[in-house]
C-alpha cells in the first residue's frame, strides 16, 4: 500500500497545503511547457520555427506570455452576468487540481489511494463542463452561448463512450483503485487486451478536453472564440491553463488504464509514467495539427452511432470472455 | 433567335448587330422602359443569364440615364446588350422577379445613381452606408466627406 502524505507531514492541514502547492506548481509548469511544446511541434509540422527568441529554443516564450497575461487589465464587459462571469474561470480550473491528486505517479508517489478513485475521477472531471457552460452563459454573448451549448452537448455525449471504455478495464482488473489497476498490469499493459477500448477512450478523451478535431465549443472559424470570447487577460489564461491541465488528466488516465502507469523496465516509475503521458499528449497535438474540425451534428453522430455501439460491443465481448475464463 | 422574338414582342425595338471581335458583344437592343420586364423574361426563358446590369449617366449629353443589361449564354458566347433610356426622375421597372440576379445589381444602380426601381423586393443601398446622402457615380457628384490625411 502506498505511503500516506498525512503520515509524512504529521499535520493533515500542512499535508494538504504542501500537496496543493505542489500540484498547482506542477500544473503551471506543465501548462507552460505544454504550450511551448505545442507551439514548437505545430511549427515544425508546418515547416516553421516556432518561438526562438526568448530563452534557449524559445523555452521562456510562454513564461513571457504569462507575464503579459497577468499584467493585463482584467476587463469585465458591461453586459455580462457578473457573478457567473467571474466564477467561471475558477470553476474550470478547480476540478483539475483535485483530479491531479488522485494519480499514482509511481508506487510511492500517490497523494491518497482511494479504492473508488476511478469513479471519483470521472465524477469530478464531469464538472469541468459546468465551468465552461457558466462561462458561456455568463458572458451573455451569442457566440459564447453557442459555444457553451455545444460544449455541454459534446461533453455529455462523449462521457458515455468514455465510461463504457473504462468499464472493461475495471472488469479485467477487478478494482476501481488506480493503484490497483496499475498493479494489475504488471505482466502486460491493457492496451494489448483492450485495444478497441483504448482507442475509444483516447478519442472520447480528446473530445472531453475540447481538443481538435473536436474543438467545436471554441471553433474559432465559426464562433470567434466560443465560450471564452468575452474573456481576456489572466481570466482567459485560466481557460488556457485548464485546457492543457485537462490534457494531462486525460492522458494520465489513459496511461493508468491502458499503458500500465508507472510500469516499465530500467527507468524509475515516475519517469515511465511521465514518458507515457507526454507521448500521448504529443499524439493529441499531432491530431490537432493534421485534421480539420468536425461539424457539430457529425460529432454527435460519431459519438452515438460509432463510439457508443462499438464500446458496448467491446463491453459485451469482454464480459463473455471474462465469464468463460 | 432572340432578336426575332424581341422584334415580335415590339417592332419598335431597334436591334443592331455589332462586331463581336472588337466590341465583345453581338447585339445591341434599344427598348422602351415599359417593355423591359417582358424582354427580360424573354431572355430568361431562352436560357440567357443576366451577366451584368449597370447604368450610364448620360444626363449631360442626352438628358437621360441609360440602363444597360447584359445577357449572355456562356457556351455559345451570345452576348446581348439592352439599352433602356430613363428620364432622370423616372422609375424603372424591376426585373428581379423574373431574374433574381438583378436584385443586387438594381440595388447597386439605386445606390450609385439614385435610380428607383418599382417593384423591387428590397430596394436599399448596397455598397454605401444606409445613412449616406448622395449617389457617388453621378457625373455631378461632389464628395463632401472630410478628407482623411
Amino acid at each position, binding site marked *: 500500500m502506498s505511503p500516506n502524505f498525512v503520515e509524512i507531514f504529521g499535520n493533515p492541514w500542512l499535508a494538504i497545503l504542501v500537496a496543493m502547492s505542489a500540484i498547482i506548481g506542477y500544473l503551471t509548469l506543465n501548462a507552460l511547457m505544454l504550450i511551448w511544446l505545442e507551439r514548437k511541434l505545430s511549427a515544425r509540422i508546418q515547416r516553421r520555427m516556432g518561438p526562438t527568441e526568448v530563452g534557449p529554443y524559445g523555452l521562456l516564450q510562454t513564461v513571457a506570455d504569462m507575464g503579459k497575461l497577468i499584467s493585463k487589465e482584467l476587463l469585465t464587459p458591461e453586459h455580462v452576468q457578473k457573478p457567473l462571469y467571474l466564477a467561471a474561470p475558477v470553476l474550470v480550473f478547480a476540478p483539475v487540481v483535485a483530479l491531479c491528486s488522485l494519480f499514482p505517479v509511481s508506487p510511492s508517489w500517490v497523494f491518497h489511494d482511494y479504492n473508488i478513485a476511478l469513479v471519483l475521477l470521472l465524477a469530478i472531471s464531469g464538472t469541468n463542463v459546468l465551468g465552461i457552460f457558466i462561462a458561456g452563459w455568463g458572458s451573455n454573448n451569442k457566440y459564447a452561448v453557442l459555444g457553451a451549448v455545444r460544449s455541454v452537448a459534446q461533453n455529455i455525449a462523449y462521457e458515455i463512450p468514455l465510461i463504457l471504455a473504462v468499464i472493461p478495464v475495471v472488469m479485467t482488473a477487478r478494482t476501481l483503485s488506480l493503484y490497483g489497476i496499475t498493479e494489475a498490469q504488471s505482466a502486460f499493459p491493457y492496451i494489448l487486451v483492450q485495444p478497441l477500448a483504448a482507442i475509444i477512450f483516447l478519442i472520447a478523451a480528446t473530445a472531453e478536453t475540447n481538443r481538435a478535431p473536436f474543438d467545436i465549443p471554441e471553433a474559432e472559424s465559426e464562433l470567434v472564440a466560443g465560450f471564452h470570447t468575452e474573456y481576456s487577460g489572466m481570466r482567459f489564461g485560466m481557460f488556457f491553463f485548464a485546457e492543457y491541465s485537462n490534457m494531462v488528466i486525460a492522458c494520465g488516465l489513459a496511461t493508468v488504464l491502458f499503458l500500465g502507469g508507472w510500469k516499465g523496465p530500467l527507468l524509475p516509475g515516475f519517469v515511465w509514467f511521465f514518458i507515457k503521458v507526454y507521448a500521448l499528449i504529443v499524439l493529441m497535438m499531432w491530431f490537432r495539427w493534421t*485534421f480539420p474540425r468536425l461539424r457539430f451534428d457529425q460529432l454527435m453522430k460519431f459519438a452515438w452511432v460509432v463510439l457508443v455501439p462499438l464500446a458496448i460491443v467491446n463491453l459485451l465481448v469482454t464480459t463473455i470472455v471474462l465469464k468463460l475464463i | 433567335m432572340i432578336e426575332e422574338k424581341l422584334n415580335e414582342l415590339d417592332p419598335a425595338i431597334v436591334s443592331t448587330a455589332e462586331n463581336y471581335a472588337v466590341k465583345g458583344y453581338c447585339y445591341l437592343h434599344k427598348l422602351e422602359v415599359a417593355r423591359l420586364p417582358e424582354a427580360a423574361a424573354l431572355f430568361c426563358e431562352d436560357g440567357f443569364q443576366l451577366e451584368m446590369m449597370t447604368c450610364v449617366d448620360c444626363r449631360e449629353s442626352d438628358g437621360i440615364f441609360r440602363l444597360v443589361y447584359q445577357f449572355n449564354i456562356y457556351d455559345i458566347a451570345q452576348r446581348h446588350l439592352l439599352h433602356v433610356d430613363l428620364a432622370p426622375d423616372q422609375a424603372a421597372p424591376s426585373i428581379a422577379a423574373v431574374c433574381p440576379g438583378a436584385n443586387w445589381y438594381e440595388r447597386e444602380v439605386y445606390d450609385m445613381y439614385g435610380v428607383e426601381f418599382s417593384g423591387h423586393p428590397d430596394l436599399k443601398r448596397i455598397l454605401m452606408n444606409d445613412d449616406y446622402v448622395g449617389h457617388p457615380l453621378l457625373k455631378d457628384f461632389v464628395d463632401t466627406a472630410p478628407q482623411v490625411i
Partner: protein
Amino acid sequence: MRFLKDIFAGTLTLLTGMRVTLQHFLRPPVTTQYPLEKLEMSEAYRDVIVLIEKEELGTHDCIDCQACVRVCPSMCIEIEGHRPEGLKRKRATKFEVDFALCSECGLCLDVCPTDTLGYGRDYDEAGYQRSDFIYDLLKPWRSGEETALKRIGEIEAAKAAERDAKKKAAAAAKKAAAAKKDAASTDPPTEKDA
C-alpha cells in the same frame, strides 16, 4: 459490415494525413528569420523610384519635363527645375516622391524620355509619420551637382561641336557633291577637250 468498412476506410485516410504531417515534421523549416537573415530581392524588385546615373553624364538626367508627374495615377511626384546658365537642357532642382501614395505601377519609368528613373532596392521602409515617406530623390546628387553641371556643359559643348562639325562636314560634302556634279556636268567637255 458496410459500417465497419467505412470506419476502417475513414481511419486509413486519417492515418495517411498523419503520415503527411509527420513527413513534413521531419523536414527542415522553410522560415527565413527575417531581421537576422536579410532577403535577397529580385532584379525586378520595385521599391520607391530613384534617379539612376546615366553613364555618359556621370549623373542623373532629369530634365524637368514633368512627363512622370502627369502620368502618375497617384499624383505623388513633384518636380521643379531650372535651366542652368550655359546649358541647353534643364535640370531638376526638386524631385520629391510621396512613397506613401505610390503604388509601384512603373508608369513613370515608361514615360521618362531620358530613362533616368529606376526602382530602388530597399524593402524594409518604415517610418513614424507620413512625412517620413516623402523621399527627396535628388539627395544623393546634391553634393556633386556643380561638377556635374560643369561636366554636362562640357559634354553639351562637345556634342554641339560635334554636331557643328557634322553639319560642317555635311555642308562640305554637299558642296563637294554639288561641285562634283558641276564638275560632272562640265567634265565631259573637258575630257573631250583633252
